[in-house]
């Protein structure tokens, strides 16, 4: 499989602050790639470099087989972008803005546009200034989903959307990638969204990728939560966050130690057992708690 986006060792400085510090990112064609990190980790900076809006200070970045800075105009024919904080022209109506962005990207499918307006319940006849945050976001989303792009770059696209619209958004992303050869880069800090949509995930911290892979792969590297009722007193080693309430215990265990801990439990005698793979949130926190 080829990569739609491949970034390695990307550097970007803003004055004395280093925003990107050797970032690696590869997004395979046809996948939804979750790009995770808290505010200020460098997600938006990376996207701005990929869009040719900012220039990197080092490292390489390739997008759809081209150079995002030099070939910006040509590459932009093949992608659509939704920023995290959409600002609209106060005097243009939502419909006009959708059409403007569509035309600039080389045409718009009227039927699909009408369908998306309906689905997102967006009134296109309001002036830009009259939209709420969520509705401004919808204007950009409708314009992007109505395009014929191969690549969608979404930078925290659902901020301000209500849960119903969040659901519509997820369905639209799934529908978008269902067509052959289409790719989505989804930057987010809403973990449930990424968990529901992404095939693979890259977690970044302080301008570097700290983890990358499928969710299954990432989980494998992490801990499992266990809750058990035991026949005797709990004497366990190689476990974390152990809480004992009489014969009930809860703890987490590194997946590499799972086998060892289970033998210990079996030795004591298990009355009931519940185990749960780590959520993305736990994965995420495990990378960030280190800093805190």
């Amino acid at each position, binding site marked *: 499989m080829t990569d739609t986006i491949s970034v390695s060792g990307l550097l970007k400085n803003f004055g004395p602050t280093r925003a990107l510090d050797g970032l690696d990112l590869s997004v395979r064609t046809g996948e939804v790639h979750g790009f995770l990190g808290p505010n200020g980790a460098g997600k938006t900076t990376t996207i701005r470099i990929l*869009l040719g809006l900012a220039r990197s200070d080092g490292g390489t970045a390739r997008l759809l087989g081209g150079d995002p800075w030099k070939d910006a105009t040509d590459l932009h024919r093949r992608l659509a972008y939704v920023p995290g904080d959409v600002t609209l022209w106060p005097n243009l109506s939502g419909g006009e803005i959708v059409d403007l962005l569509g035309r600039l990207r080389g045409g718009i499918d009227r039927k699909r546009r009408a369908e998306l307006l309906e689905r997102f319940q967006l009134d296109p006849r309001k002036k830009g200034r009259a939209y709420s945050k969520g509705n401004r976001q919808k204007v950009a989303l409708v314009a992007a989903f109505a395009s014929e792009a191969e690549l969608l770059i979404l930078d925290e696209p659902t901020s301000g959307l209500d849960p119903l619209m969040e659901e519509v958004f997820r369905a639209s992303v799934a529908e978008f990638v269902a067509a052959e050869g289409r790719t989505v880069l989804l930057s987010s800090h809403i973990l449930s969204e990424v968990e529901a949509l992404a095939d693979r995930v890259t977690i970044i911290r302080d301008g570097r990728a700290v983890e990358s892979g499928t969710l299954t792969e990432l989980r494998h590297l992490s801990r499992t939560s266990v809750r058990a009722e035991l026949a005797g007193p709990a004497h366990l080693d190689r476990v974390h966050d152990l809480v004992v309430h009489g014969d009930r215990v809860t703890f987490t265990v590194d997946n590499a130690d799972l086998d060892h801990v289970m033998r210990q439990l079996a030795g004591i005698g298990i009355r009931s057992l519940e185990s749960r793979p780590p959520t993305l949130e736990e994965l995420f926190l495990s990378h960030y708690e280190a800093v805190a």
Partner: protein
Amino acid sequence: MFAGTATLLRLGLRLDRVRLPIWVLVLAVMPAATAAQYQDLYPTDADISDVSGILANPALEAINGPLFSVTLGGLTAWKIGATEFVLVALMSLLTVVRHTRTEEETGRLELVGSAATGRYAPLTAALLVASIADVVAGALVAVFLAATGLPVAGSVAFGLATTVTGLLFAGVAAVAAQLVGAGRSATGIAAGVLGAAYLARALGDTGPTGLSWASPLGWAMRTRAFADERWWAPVLSLVVAAGLGVLAYVLVARRDVGASLVPERPAPEAGSLGSPFALAWRLQRGVLFGWIVAMVFAGAVLGGSANGLSDSLGSNQELTDVLARLGGSAGIVDSYLAAVFGIMGLTIAAYTVQATLRLRSEEASQRVEPLLATPVGRVRWLLGHLAFAVLGTPLLLAVAGLAGGLTYGLETADVGGQVPRLLGAALVQTPAAWVLAGVGAALFGLVPRWSVLTWGGLIACFVALELGALLGVSQWLIDVSPFAHVPKLPGGSLRVAPLFGLTAAAAVLVGAGVAGFRRRDVG
């Protein structure tokens, strides 16, 4: 109903703690500074009566209103009155809309409204903020005028006229803010009323006096400061201001927070914009149309003012000298016209700067990023906006020149001759204004955060022009301004070398800006 007004008032004053003092200071100093300037220029009443002949012409009356008394005070009130009253009205209406409809539109008022505030509190607080500014400004105007040695009664009358005019337009804005949903529209309505008041007064002062009495600005002038004051005129304004205030309260009680009395028209469901230039046209056309209307009016008035000038002016050597330095020495009327078009060129350069800096405001508001993430190239987007600075400038100059040529031609029965002369006099200003577009583009491309300094460049040109009217200023200080190199037409000789030079300088600056913008990060 009024609960929380005191808190909102404090908030309003806190938010305006820089803006309003500047407004008030400008309003307070302007009349006294004018008086001091005239004191130097015309030390005796005899000097004043020498120049009063020039002042009696209809064009200047359209701008300044009638001159009620040939004294230092009368001349001061005449010269600065129209400007002072328009500015105090603007201060008040902007303040009231900012603290009512704009707050409501952005949703900030809802935050406040959900706290323990009464229905009338925001409007009351806004009116109080504006009233405080109006009263302080009027009081300072009176004190400063009296301090320059003018009669106290006249100073107080002028200050009072300033205050009540402000209050009246605060009332206008309070009503406008209830009518429409957007702060900009409310400001537009209130400013439209102000514009109509100005126009009615201008027409009334040159023809049917009844029209002047239909205008609050006419009332302010007819307070006749320093000329047998009419104390009931400010009372008239106060009564109208109070009436408008009451109307605003009635309207507030009848609507929901965030709602407007005039329903928002639905905007178009679909659009035909499909290129960066089409978008730029859509965003910039309103400003351009506004300028065209203003330039038709300004050109016509200034062209019409030239003819009555020659006789009365010839006797004042000092004024003749000033005009000769500003406008060249080819006959007094031509010098005057050349000086007028020099000032016109600088004024239109404000449009040039405004149109150029739209680039920066589009970038700073982050509206440009989604555009540049489409196949629209950076240069194409930049040129789309710059086209307005580059083409709009000669268009506006041509409009002013045509209007001036027509009115001057009609007065001298030489339309065929004067139209091309004054058109030329206007159009030669183009390359100098382009240089400012170049400065704006270069700053935008190379140091975007400093783009706003372009306005500093325009101010520097104005200062150089003012200095040019004085003797004993080093020439290089004046030559900094591109406008100093424009041939003084009509009357002077049309030297094309400086025009090419200025155009080339502008082109180099634009080129530097484009090159810079292609290299730098956006945002």
